[in-house]
């Protein structure tokens, strides 16, 4: 097998390189649960999972406050996904993490 082919196999089978990251969260209202992303699916995703996880954590922290803007809905199931929408492992623990988990 040629080296180029071997490298291709390694790239496809070993560590994957995501194209970008988004913060996934759900907003709980009286009637329904709305799923949203930061940045939105129409915008360019974050190029850094560090930035994405930091944003997720700040978002989670904001749900702990008693700010009047969060009175209508509570943000739940906050985690980072890649550009394709698959959950991304938290880089610090190398495990899937969810901030403010809430079974829907």
């Amino acid at each position, binding site marked *: 097998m040629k080296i180029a082919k071997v*490298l291709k196999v390694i790239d496809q089978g070993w*560590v994957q*390189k995501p*194209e*970008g990251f988004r913060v996934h969260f759900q907003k709980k209202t009286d009637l329904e649960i709305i799923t949203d992303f930061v940045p939105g699916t129409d915008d360019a995703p974050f190029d850094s999972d560090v930035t994405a996880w930091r944003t997720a954590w700040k978002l989670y922290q904001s749900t702990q406050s008693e700010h009047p803007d969060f009175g209508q809905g509570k943000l739940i199931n906050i985690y980072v996904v890649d550009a394709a929408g698959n959950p991304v492992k938290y880089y610090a623990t*190398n495990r899937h993490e969810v901030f403010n988990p809430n079974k829907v």
Partner: protein
Amino acid sequence: MVDQFPKLIKIKDVLTLYGQDLVQSMFFLVVGLIAIRLIIKLFKRTLSKITPNVPLVSAISNTIYVILLVTVITTALVPIGLDTRNVLRFLIIISLVTVALIIIFRPYIPSLPFKVGNTIKTGELLGKVESTTFLNTRMRTFDGKTVWIPNSKILNDYMINYHLTPSRRVNLDVRIRYDQDLMKAKQVLEAIMIEDPRTLAKPRPIVYVTHLLEDCVTIGGRCWVDNLKYWRVRCDLLEKTKLRFDNEGIAFAYPQRDVHVYNKTKLVEDAPIKASCAVPKDDDFEDMQ
């Protein structure tokens, strides 16, 4: 003083004849120059809002400035009685001669190895070039300071231009203890670099064992990133390395030296302390000299 009278009378005659025209001409010139200054300032501000390309804005503004300047000078010379066509011809000849001289002597003129908008490092200063003149270069450092550097200093010192190459290498040098799993450390470090979307696939990220020091093994991760993303990628990779190594149970090394004392005889408690705390006398210094 008496000798000066004929000259003064001559000046008076000239002023009487052409004074009004001269004043008119000077008025056009001064007003024209002020107007050009305002127009160019306004134009630059408007153009900067349309395009963020600083060199392009600068080039267009300079061209318009020259055209307006020629127009104002020509207009100012008309009241004196000079023929506009001759003035224009004269200015065109001067311009062409200047351009020709620049083309001929350009290889011999020391030029600055950067353009406006480039990120450079000269001496200890790192920042973005905002403008250049014949005498100095204005640079904005990344901590918000504006620095004017003499061009002579830039030309006589080393200088790094980060815009000439599109990518840059990130070095991640990590020191681990000898009793740690070296292969696991290499694998984790390589995975951290590969899984970052900003690291380039070619050249591939790679990990070397760079040193076997007396207190640690040094492994060096090498990956390439776009020049503009260098700083953030480096910081993110360092953070991930620290956290992932902690999570994987790979201990970092810190400078240390183990001292093993093998002593067959029993130590007398007072004797070594007295010896180590002994204050040297003056005679001791004389002996040393």
